[in-house]
């Protein structure tokens, strides 16, 4: 019987021995790799840099699509930004200044390239630019690219952004409706398609070596919309795209190429741009590998390889950073304390983030089959449909939020209270504008006035929602519950996390009560925030019920329209300030917070700068290590 002990012991010894053998091997393995590095890079101070030839960014999540005209998320945008190029780009981190990119000049009134009171934009094109496959860039490619984007216009995609300045509508469907009376662009016949094409084509013209955009109305943020970093304006190779099975460039084929699904989109996983990096390999959810474009029209990038890895597990990202395997990692706000003070790691906090998180209130809650309003009546056991139509209720809620605690504790100081729909540093944002503060007395005052005092008498019970998994929103909801319930013992708030599917359903079916949402900038202009939050047909405004919509149609929409068609910046500033205070006075939503961004990287990374529009995307061309 003793033999069995021996066997066990033997197994243990082998296992332990095997382990140590393997760790030793590991050490042996890493050394020669480092020696090689030293040989290649004689400069002594870079000897400690892990992998100097490869820049590794570790992020999380999926990449939606590599098609620049399809993608509408920050992870995709980052890759598009490095592979494709636009006519102009931001002057590094300055979102108000542009420098030429594929165009040789940035149009302005002064240089005469913006004409016709801001309705014509002329871009002289750069020559000797080649795509990664060796094809040369022509003005025709630019025109093709913009038309492809307009024709493709997938549902839920980003193309609405250029429909607005170019055609003053929101989508291709609106254009087809207007021009040929067809509701769904996929139903266009060949003739109708040609008609629509002709209508679209007049907005983008090629004039010799220039590309000319014709706008029906002045649209101040136009340059920002088509600037580098927004895939919409990315220029693709016409010939190559057609080869891949993309839009054939023919006027009669809109129906065939509009609104593709990802699997039907030939550019979903292929890239061929003019940018400083070209795509080597993309495994969605795992990694994207880029390599330097050696025939780049500027100096080739200094780092030969870029790897963007997707790692959902924070602990893993943390260790990769710690070991120097990663040069930049994505860190959720709540884990900042774990990276502060890490050796060889640079933490930059407090970067301005053009983003607004708000509590959206539904002015006309659909009460039927909606458990979140409980009784659905003003009887102390629920809330009526028009609960949030009462301005006192809205103000009461606005005063019952502890903004300072939220910023201090939840955001750990990385942010500020929202002052309205428009965040810093956009036009209309004012540092000392009026805001709601945490003041339970004032909250009580308003709640007492709500529904002519009946609400105070009866009390209410409501369930407010957050999409589960979102800690920050959950905390906001918990806080609100905590403080509102302190005001009156008959006030009862339940906090319920629901899955994204149900959250979306609630929003669409107008059944949400108060829910936390957010909006991040598509381009650097207050228009981009005023519309979704305030306009009667805005992304969020449109879901807030009849009472809101009729009020907004009267009070908000004209102001927004004025703001976007005005070119004088001072006048515009005044208009947006008015909008901001209109939102404040009416307590339209609960503007909760504007977070700041942070970046966590190894301290050997050089040349990094922050661009709030591209956040958190990185433009690797400017980096070195």
């Amino acid at each position, binding site marked *: 019987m003793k033999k069995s002990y021996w066997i066990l012991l033997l197994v243990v010894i082998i296992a332990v021995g095997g382990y140590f053998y393997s760790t030793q091997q590991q050490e042996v393995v890493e050394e020669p790799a480092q020696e090689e590095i030293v040989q290649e890079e004689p400069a002594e101070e870079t000897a400690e840099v892990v992998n100097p030839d490869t820049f590794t960014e570790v992020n999380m999540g999926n990449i939606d699509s590599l098609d620049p005209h399809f993608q509408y998320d920050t992870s995709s945008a980052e890759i598009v930004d490095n592979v494709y190029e636009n006519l102009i780009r931001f002057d590094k981190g300055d979102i108000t200044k542009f420098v030429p990119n594929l165009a040789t000049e940035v149009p302005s009134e002064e240089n005469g390239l913006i004409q016709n009171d801001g309705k014509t934009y002329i871009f002289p094109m750069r020559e000797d630019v080649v795509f990664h496959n060796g094809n040369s860039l022509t003005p025709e490619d630019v025109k093709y690219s913009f038309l492809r984007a307009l024709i493709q216009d997938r549902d839920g995609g980003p193309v609405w952004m250029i429909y607005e300045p170019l055609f003053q509508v929101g989508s291709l469907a609106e254009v087809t409706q207007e021009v040929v009376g067809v509701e769904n662009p996929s139903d266009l016949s060949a003739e109708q398609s040609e008609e629509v094409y002709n209508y679209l084509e007049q907005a983008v013209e090629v004039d010799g070596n220039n590309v000319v955009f014709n706008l029906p109305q002045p649209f101040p943020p136009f340059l920002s919309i088509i600037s580098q970093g927004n895939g919409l304006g990315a220029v693709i190779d016409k010939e190559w795209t057609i080869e891949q099975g993309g839009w054939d460039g023919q006027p009669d084929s809109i129906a065939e190429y509009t609104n593709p699904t990802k699997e039907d989109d030939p550019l979903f996983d292929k890239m061929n741009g003019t940018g400083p990096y070209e795509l080597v390999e993309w495994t969605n959810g795992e990694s994207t590998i880029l390599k330097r474009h050696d025939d780049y029209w500027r100096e080739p990038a200094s780092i030969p390889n870029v790897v963007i890895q997707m790692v959902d597990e*924070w*602990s893993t990202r*943390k*260790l990769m950073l710690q070991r120097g395997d990663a040069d930049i990692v994505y860190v*959720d*706000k*709540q*884990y900042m*304390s*774990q*990276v*502060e*003070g*890490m*050796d060889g790691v640079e933490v930059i906090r407090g970067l301005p983030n053009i983003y607004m998180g708000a509590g959206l209130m539904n002015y006309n809650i659909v009460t039927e089959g909606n458990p979140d309003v409980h009784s659905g009546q003003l009887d102390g056991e629920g809330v009526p449909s028009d609960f949030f139509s009462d301005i006192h209720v809205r103000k009461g809620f606005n005063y019952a939020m*502890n903004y300072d*605690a*939220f910023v201090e*504790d*939840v955001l*750990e100081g990385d942010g500020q209270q929202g002052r309205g729909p428009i965040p810093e540093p956009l036009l209309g944002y004012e540092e000392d504008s009026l805001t709601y503060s945490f003041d339970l007395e004032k909250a009580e005052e308003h709640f007492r006035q709500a529904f002519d005092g009946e609400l105070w008498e009866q009390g209410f019970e409501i369930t407010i929602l957050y999409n*589960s*998994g979102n*800690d920050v929103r*959950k*905390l906001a909801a*918990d*806080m609100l519950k905590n403080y509102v319930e302190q005001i009156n013992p008959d006030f009862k708030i339940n*906090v*319920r*996390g*629901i*899955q994204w*599917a*149900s959250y979306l359903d609630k929003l669409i079916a107008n059944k949400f009560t108060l829910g936390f949402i957010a909006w991040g900038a598509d381009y650097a202009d207050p228009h981009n925030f005023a519309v979704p939050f305030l306009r009667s047909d805005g992304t969020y405004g449109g879901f807030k019920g009849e009472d809101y919509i009729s009020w907004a149609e009267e009070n908000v929409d004209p102001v927004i329209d004025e703001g976007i068609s005005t070119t004088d910046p001072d006048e515009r500033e005044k208009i947006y300030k008015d909008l901001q205070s209109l939102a404040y006075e009416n307590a339209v939503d609960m503007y909760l917070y504007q977070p700041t961004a942070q970046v966590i990287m190894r301290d050997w990374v050089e040349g990094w700068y922050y661009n709030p529009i591209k956040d958190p995307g990185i433009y690797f061309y400017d980096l070195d290590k």
Partner: protein
Amino acid sequence: MEWQEVIKRLLQNKVSLFGILIILFFIIVAVFAPYIAPPRDADEPYLIPRGGWSIQPQPPNEEYIFGTTEGQYDIFYGIVWGTRTAFRIGLVVVGISSFIGISVGTIAAYYGGFIDEIIMRITDIFMSIPFIIATIVFVTILGQGIGNVMIALITFSWMSTARLMRSQVLSVKEDEFVQAAVALGANDFRIIFKHIILNTIFPVVIQASMRMGSMVITASTLSFLGVGAPEGYADWGQMISFARNWILGVEGNPLNYWYTLVIPGAAITLFCLSWNLIGDAFRDILDPKLN
């Protein structure tokens, strides 16, 4: 073997006694939860109170003797009320799914033939989806919540009992006393109840006691993956999911947040351990072949 005898032996066996003592401890904690950890809001005792709004866990201190986990949830409170959650899940899920399994298995074996074939193929279908995946899908569809977790677990966990019961009944069915009852013209219901189920129940009971632990583990796993209990609900699995992003500690002290993982981890492991110890001892007692 008589029940009294089984219980007597369970109490005599050191291992199962240990298991029984742990369970008793958990039962006491569950029963007296309102006194051990008085809820802040009596209407919603299962919501763990927060000790602040910060996300960073706090180590054990006088006010929060086990510390607070991510989001300042009181670990002590979560453990105490999580005991109730665990019992609720275990008893309800094992109870109902065993009942379904016993019924299905008995019907299949007793009637045999076509009915048996159909039932067993349905069982196969339910068994062909990995349990955890099936429950994730179902809970995602039903929405978060302990009730929904239980529904999903029941839906996908009755099959093993059904199979066990079927094989048990098949062997007992041929026994003389059953044949005799059939010959005497007893009705099906009576035969099934009086003669078959009572004679086959012990292995099912052993299995059920083992499943207590595994059902609680699966429920916690769902919470851990973020589809089980709603955030802030007193549930051990969720408390561990709160710990997930803190296991590497801070620079210089990798064990800085040990309490967020170790305390709830110990609770759930001990709970399952105690049921498994009892189940183990049970089997040893009832399975004379092994002694």
